[in-house]
């Protein structure tokens, strides 16, 4: 009896203690929700920001659709960088964005990747449908912008209907990349920038900008940003010249930032 009560009390104390530790460790951290494809560049940018005396930044990298859903249900976030307009529109419609903070930041292109040691060649969207090519990984078009873009490209090339049966939908564009790296699928459609970070994949086909849908990465501050003014400062930094250099180095195309924080 005493043992049980003791154990219960002990476990509750332990839990309380670790949560208080967590609260102490949390400090003034910015929470930035960002499209999975931005992981490397944003982490580099956060390091630059910290060097300039900016706050520490904690990231949540996932498919933009997942991020939007989390924010809609109340996940605390300061900024969101989505890989497509449609996902951010949902937050705008729900009135969750800080007015005037939204801006189009980056662009990208699609690429078809195969494993580095794969002998397969792909010269067009229609090639993906050929029976020599097995499973093709793409982001789930409903929540992963890279998947939605890929679908739009394939539909434009009249190849979607032929590929849909062997498409493997993934949780994020990085999931697509991992599936190709592991050799469990024959090919995958990712962003060019994703293809550049992996040594285990090879770009089989660069989708020409004119052929694919226009890709735009918008950024915005959340209305209820817990970081307050610091969130706005980091947003300004992301839109500034130092960050632009990092994005460029990772292969992103910069869109001129017109709106946004000062």
């Amino acid at each position, binding site marked *: 009896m005493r043992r049980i009560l003791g154990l219960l009390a002990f476990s509750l104390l332990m839990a309380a203690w670790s949560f208080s530790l967590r609260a102490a460790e949390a400090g003034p951290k910015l929470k930035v929700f960002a499209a999975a494809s931005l992981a490397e560049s944003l982490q580099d940018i956060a390091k630059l920001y910290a060097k300039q005396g900016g706050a520490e930044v904690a990231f949540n990298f996932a498919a933009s659709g997942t991020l939007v859903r989390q924010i809609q249900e*109340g996940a605390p976030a300061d900024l969101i960088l989505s890989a497509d307009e449609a996902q951010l529109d949902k937050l705008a419609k729900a009135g969750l964005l800080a007015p005037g903070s939204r801006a189009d930041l980056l662009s990208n292109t699609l690429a078809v990747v195969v494993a580095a040691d794969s002998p397969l060649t792909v010269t067009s969207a229609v090639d993906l449908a050929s029976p020599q090519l097995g499973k093709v990984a793409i982001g789930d078009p409903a929540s992963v912008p890279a998947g939605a873009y890929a679908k739009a490209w394939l539909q434009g090339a009249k190849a979607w209907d032929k590929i849909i049966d062997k498409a493997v939908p993934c949780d994020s564009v990085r999931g697509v990349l991992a599936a190709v790296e592991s050799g469990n699928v024959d090919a995958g459609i990712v962003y060019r920038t994703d293809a550049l970070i992996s040594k285990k994949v090879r770009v089989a086909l660069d989708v020409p900008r004119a052929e694919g849908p226009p890709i735009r990465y918008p950024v915005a501050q959340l209305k209820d940003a817990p970081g307050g003014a610091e969130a706005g400062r980091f947003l300004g930094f992301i839109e500034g010249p130092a960050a632009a250099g990092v994005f460029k180095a990772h292969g992103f195309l910069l869109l001129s930032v017109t709106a946004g924080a000062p």
Partner: protein
Amino acid sequence: MDPEELRALWFTVACALAGVGLVALPAFGLAWLLARRDWPGKSLLETAVALPLVLPPVATGLILLKLLGRRGWLGGWAHAAFGWDIAFTWRAVPVALGAAALPLMVRSFRVALEGVDPRLEQVARTLGGGELRVLRTITLPLAQRGLLAGLVLGFARALGEFGATVVLAGNIPGETSTLALALYRAVELGRDDQALRLLLVSIVLAYGALWMSERALGSGRRP
């Protein structure tokens, strides 16, 4: 292990403890009602309590999300009253883990309570003991091994919870990622070495928890 993995480890343990603590009393109350009382509709409640054992954990998570999300009626109230958001914050994790542990705990508690001879309680009552005193001096001490095992079993179940957590809390690194969620992310992103480390940690942790629950049940059986 890198800091992120270490964090996932202690966060999982802390949330499992908190989750078990959260549901321990309700679980005991339910077990007591099921073991010691008869009333119309008892079998319905009995089934409802066991439901999360067989329901897909994702479904349990969805029920919790509809309840605790910002637009859910409990979550909406918490948001309006205290400014607390539950879904997709760390607060959601103990809730999800506790919900997963609850049915197992009720089961173990109930068996433990049923193992106590009601005549002993009756005797205590005839000697003038009130219900609370009977519970404290007769029922709980006699059932303690099973109760303890139920707590540890619930804790063990909570450690491995995935489906309800991912729906209710999302997989937010550094915020809601438990061992199971971190493991899934590592697999999804093809980080095999990290996945392997997390796998080992999960095995050690689960083994330890199960061993403890077996010991809690077994040690006293031998005179």
